[in-house]
């Protein structure tokens, strides 16, 4: 019976299945949370008809989109037009593969050999996330170009410029954390944050890298095209930006990619700055609860910010990115490097 997969392989495949579906579900939940929080901020009640408190509303929306007609502009570039949403969604899901969300487990003794709660532990994990995120830009740029519409093109161009500008600060903020941890593996970075100072302050990098955390969050908002940096799809100027010409499921895929990207950025922030699955009170094997809670907090912050702050102007965004955020990130990197050298 050597052709049968070993229990570890089955557990790994199960893990991939669970993570994939959890990402889809978290995107659905985020859509619901966004509408609900937005409604309360604007003194409305939001979706409350489909399911308990409107929890099934996102699924109703997906079925509606599935039944819509798939449209394609006559002058669009067919191959790239079809390819663009696929690139966006694939990149969004792939990036999560290297994010750890719990300690090693044997699934209550079912497995001989403990498996870590993450899909794969690459020793250059942080760079892999960076690489996959930079691939995600192509989805948006291609959608903008291939639609052959002026609004889409402008949206795509803006998004390319915005993401290139903010990727630098994003990378420099991460580099400071990498220097402190001395490792590129997210699992090792999280393990480096275990323990406490003075018995009650957790050794999370957010306390050592407060500026880095702010830079990461700001650049993360710009990278995921969220308000107040949502220029690629600024409704008042560009109709819907790069996905103006998309309908039905191909539009839904862009939508899904945006929310999954948010979840990934939050999960990486949790691992880099908030100690990942580490936390007090809960036993080790329940660490993923802490992980989910921290990710949820950051996601809530995202939604909160979107419905509180108005959109910037495009030139302000560029000026802020290059003249303020990037110098701040460089200074943060220099200061961190000097401290790491000094303390040892």
């Amino acid at each position, binding site marked *: 019976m050597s052709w049968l997969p070993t229990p570890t392989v089955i557990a790994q495949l199960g893990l991939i299945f669970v993570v994939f579906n959890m990402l889809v579900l978290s995107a659905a939940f985020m859509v619901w949370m966004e509408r609900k929080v937005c409604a309360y901020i604007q003194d409305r009640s939001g979706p409350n008809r489909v399911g308990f408190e409107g929890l099934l509303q996102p699924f109703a929306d997906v079925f509606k989109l599935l039944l819509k007609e798939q449209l394609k502009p006559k002058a669009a*570039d067919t191959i*790239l037009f079809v*390819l663009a949403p696929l690139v966006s969604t694939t990149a969004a899901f792939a990036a999560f593969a290297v994010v750890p969300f719990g300690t090693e487990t044997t699934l209550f003794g079912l497995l001989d050999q403990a498996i870590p709660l993450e899909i794969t532990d690459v020793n*250059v994990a942080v*760079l892999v996330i*960076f690489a996959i995120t930079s*691939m995600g*830009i192509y989805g948006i*740029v291609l959608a903008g170009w291939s639609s052959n519409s002026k609004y889409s093109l402008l949206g795509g161009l803006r998004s390319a410029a915005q993401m290139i500008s903010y990727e630098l600060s994003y990378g420099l903020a991460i580099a400071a954390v990498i220097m402190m941890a001395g490792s*590129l593996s997210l699992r090792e970075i999280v393990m480096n944050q275990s323990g406490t100072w003075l018995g009650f302050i957790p050794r999370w990098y957010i306390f050592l890298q407060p500026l880095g955390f702010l830079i990461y969050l700001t650049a993360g908002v710009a990278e995921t095209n969220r308000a107040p940096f949502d220029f690629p799809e600024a409704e008042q100027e560009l109709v819907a930006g790069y996905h103006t010409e998309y309908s039905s499921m191909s539009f839904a895929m862009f939508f899904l990619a945006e929310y999954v990207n948010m979840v990934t950025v939050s999960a990486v922030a949790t691992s880099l700055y908030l100690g990942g699955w580490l936390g007090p009170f809960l036993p080790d094997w329940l660490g993923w609860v802490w992980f989910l809670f921290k990710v949820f907090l950051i996601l809530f912050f995202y939604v909160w910010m979107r419905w509180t702050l108005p959109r910037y102007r495009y030139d302000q965004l560029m000026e802020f990115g290059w003249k303020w955020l990037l110098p701040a990130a460089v200074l943060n990197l220099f200061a961190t490097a000097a401290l790491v050298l000094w303390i040892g």
Partner: protein
Amino acid sequence: MEILAFYAFAAITVIASLLVVGQGNPMHSVMLLIVSFGALAGLYVLLDAPFTAVTQIIVYAGAIMVLFLFVVMLLNVPREEAVAPAISALLGPTGMRLGVVLSVLLAVEVVWALSRVGIGWFTQGTSAASVSSVALIGNSLFTRHAFAFEATSVLILVAMVGAVVLAGRERH
């Protein structure tokens, strides 16, 4: 398995690169070039050099190709103009023949040089660990290859200054 993966990635790299040249639409050329870079990164992974692979994706497939796309989109050329026949001597029959001779010479020279140094020259001083560990790569980059590293950065700086000068010329 590894051999299969190697041939798959190699085939994708070569075919995509050939298609890059053959495309009439510059947008498709750029996309195919990204595919070729991606397959090349796959080859690096097979060589146990994940850092090189990821850097290849970030720098070439990510940053540089986005700039390419940016330019193509800004100019918005749907189709490359066919080259006008024989506008200069370089594209005339004499120039073409000279080009063929030169490329044959180059191929002969490369084969000759490779056969002289032998395969051992490439493997000396490098082990699997030295390409897979980020710390070792950093060490050798800033000690053994420090001069080449600094020279490259100066080269890039020169290109940057050149771009600034060219862009600023019209104002003065």
